[in-house]
């Protein structure tokens, strides 16, 4: 039988399993049906209920404007799937092509998609994390709990971590006039994603809105009362604040543990795959039947010198899901690469922040349009003389232009002035926090000597 016949057979009555029933999983399922896949589709998810959207959780849900269970993702078409919800997958057997569920069932497949995303990084001290009033924000339950706590009018909210989620939550608390302390180990908010210059602007914005912002400090201890409610936090500089709500916003941990013994290329940055979303095995060889999409994926981007990039962006999850679905039902010659320029947005302190490209892939940044003082500007990022990203504050309509500059490797800094270019626009070093803040461990060791023998084996992650 030819490959084309096999593929037709698979499209007609093959079996696809999607593990991770959320944004990427749902969109992949819809795209599979759009592409004419009529076989059996199984959706496995550890959360109960229909797939839902997360960006509103730190925005509209927290203000109470949208209820936590009102963020169900719209269905763009019927996907006619078998749903296995409320039970995590806890193993993948590549030799026999089946997924193991935590309740002991095994689910066979011809092709599968991994879209298990990330989970919130919890407060590292378990007893302190368990105190009443300590929250993370990743799921709708998390958001519903925090919404209630914020609506109750706490005397002070402490937010640990001034990334996007932490900053959005700080903004909403200030809108409601709740006293807020934000603690951040880096020198300013958002600095890990957008660099020092934007970080300083973000810091000014927070302070102008009355946030008690403390940078360059670590929270060392959360202290509870006799009833097990959080009351106070201690900082590395010896100070402390009283707070009755604490939000731990320390980023995510990729949900890959269940794949540890699968033989796939899995690490702290996710499951490595090629630009067509096909997973790599442990040795770095591409698999045929295992695909990856969304926050859990880590793929090489030709535009960024084929570096492997992991993104926690909504649009990336959607785009990868569609590429993965297409490639699952296509022959090698018809496969698509995932080449879209990443985009991300956030809303905080009345400012709509949007980015295109990968701002961390840069050595310099320059304000090209607008006014920093008015919080209405565009900044372009460059790496060795070419444009690699741009960020806008309340000025998103221009970003399509910058996307084009990135796609065409346009020179940095952009040479031609615009009517709204600031007079003093000069590139400055982008200045991201050093490796000490972003440390990671090794995932594998290499064994064997002859070329036919050399293999890598996974290293157990130390805690």
């Amino acid at each position, binding site marked *: 039988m030819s490959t084309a016949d096999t593929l037709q057979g698979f499209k007609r009555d093959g079996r696809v399993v999607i593990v991770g029933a959320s944004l990427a999983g749902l969109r992949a399922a819809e795209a599979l049906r759009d592409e004419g896949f009529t076989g059996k589709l199984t959706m496995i998810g550890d959360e109960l209920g229909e797939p839902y959207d997360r960006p509103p959780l730190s925005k509209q849900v927290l203000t109470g404007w949208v209820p936590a269970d009102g963020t169900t993702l719209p269905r763009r078409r019927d996907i006619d799937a078998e749903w296995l919800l409320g039970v995590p997958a806890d193993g993948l057997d590549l030799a026999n092509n089946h997924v193991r569920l935590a309740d002991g069932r095994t689910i066979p497949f011809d092709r599968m998609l991994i879209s298990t995303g990330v989970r919130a990084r919890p407060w590292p001290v378990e007893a302190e994390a368990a105190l009443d009033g300590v929250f993370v924000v990743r799921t709708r339950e998390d958001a519903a709990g925090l919404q209630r706590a914020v609506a109750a009018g706490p005397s002070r909210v402490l937010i640990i971590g001034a990334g996007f989620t932490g900053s959005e939550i700080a903004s909403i608390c200030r809108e409601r006039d709740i006293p807020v302390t934000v603690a951040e180990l880096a020198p300013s908010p958002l600095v890990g994603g957008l660099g020092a210059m934007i970080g300083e602007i973000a810091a000014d914005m927070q302070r102008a809105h009355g946030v008690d912002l403390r940078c360059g400090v670590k929270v060392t201890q959360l202290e509870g009362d006799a009833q097990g409610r959080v009351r106070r936090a201690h900082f590395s500089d010896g100070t402390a604040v009283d707070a009755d709500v604490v939000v731990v916003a320390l980023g995510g941990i990729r949900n890959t543990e269940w794949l540890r013994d699968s033989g796939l290329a899995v690490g702290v940055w996710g499951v490595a795959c090629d630009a067509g979303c096909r997973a790599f095995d442990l040795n770095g060889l591409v698999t045929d039947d295992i695909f990856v999409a969304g926050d859990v994926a880590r793929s090489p981007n030709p535009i960024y010198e084929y570096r492997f990039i992991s993104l926690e962006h909504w649009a990336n999850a959607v785009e990868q899901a569609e590429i993965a679905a297409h490639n699952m039902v296509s022959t090698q010659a018809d496969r698509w690469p995932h080449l879209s320029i990443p985009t991300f947005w956030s809303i905080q302190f009345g400012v709509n922040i949007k980015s295109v490209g990968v701002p961390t892939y840069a050595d310099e940044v320059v304000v*090209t*349009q*607008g*006014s920093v003082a*008015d919080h*209405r500007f*565009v900044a372009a990022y460059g790496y060795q003389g070419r444009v690699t990203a741009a960020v806008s504050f309340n000025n998103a*309509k*221009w*970003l*399509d*232009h910058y996307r*084009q500059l990135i796609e065409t490797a346009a020179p940095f800094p952009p040479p*031609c*002035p*615009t*009517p*709204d270019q600031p007079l003093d626009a000069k590139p400055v070093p982008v200045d991201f926090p050093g490796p000490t803040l972003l440390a990671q461990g090794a995932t594998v060791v290499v064994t064997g000597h002859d070329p036919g023998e050399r293999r890598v084996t996974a290293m157990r992650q130390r805690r």
Partner: protein
Amino acid sequence: MTTTETPDILPRILDYANRADPYPLYAELRKTPVALQEDGSYVISTYRELSGILHDPHLSSDVRNLAHPMPAMQERATPSFINLDPPEHDRLRRLAMRHFGPPHTPGLVTGMEPDLTAVVAGLIDDFAGKQRIDIVDDFAYPFPVTVICHLLGVPREDEPRFHVWVNAIIDSIDYNPKTDPQEKLDNGVQATKALRQYLGGLLEQRHGHPGDDLLTRLANDDGPDGRMTDAEIVSTANLLLIAGHETTVNLITNGMLTLLRRPEVLQRLRAEPGLVVPLVEELLRYEPPVHIIPWRAAYSDISVGDTVIPKGSKIMLMLASGSRDPDRFHDPDRFDPDRQDNQHLGFGSGIHLCFGGPMARLETQIALTALVRRLADPSLVTDPPPYRPSPVLRGPIHLLIDQN
């Protein structure tokens, strides 16, 4: 991409003889996506290049950035935001938007639905007993004019006065020094002055008086960006009055003409009122009311594909041509209300995206739904109908129909 001189196509498009069907000429024009003209200006006609340049911050809307400033524009004091660049454009548009749409006035447009429906019903009631109707004079013109007057707070009775001025202004937008008498330009300048004076007079009465119309709100309301000066309010009101006058008329009329030419679609709309939403989108692609952005200026050198348009050049954007580009739209010359992924250029794109778009959409949806529901077996009297002179704001000047 190539840039060659295409000396004959543009003049033919502008020629009134081709007003009824400029689309084959657009197809010819698209063979040269960026076409250098004899006078040094550039005409852009393909979708990809148009949407690229509409998002390009080096494209200026301010005539003062043209190497050879245009005569028609020099006299205009305080330009309205359509003729300005950021940051002034952004500030004025934001100040106006505060009273017109989200986030501060989210319900304004949808809240007008009952009023719009009532105006439409009244106009159609007047058709009773008439066998022959002019869709333009009897319906498509009075409807949006009534609406914009109400919204702005301009007395509807004054319409005959400012109608003359608006016509003269529209005429002067198409001014061509080669073929037009200077008089046309002078009339436009005079009319602009008169209209501004008239609006200034209305504005004076509004200061310190509470009220719900846009003039009053702009005159009295302070937001975080401060308040518009009187001159700015007048130029904004001037813009909205003209735009509210001329474009929706064409959209409704073009819509009715399109439906009358396709009785099966007209029947379908009658049976399926929900179809009107995608149908109006398709109309904005297929027979848009604004065909051309007649000029923009290159603030710096602008790269479009392989072409570099030099700083100071005049640029003409053929929006209606871009919306019929076969490289972007499947079977573009087919009117297909079920079309997917219909990102047309009917309202432009980028920061100057039509301010009144949501309102024009709603007006047209209500108008077409009511017309097909209540006109019994309408038929077109002349096809093609006579057109207005303008190649920029293109539409029939009369659309005669018989109802049986």
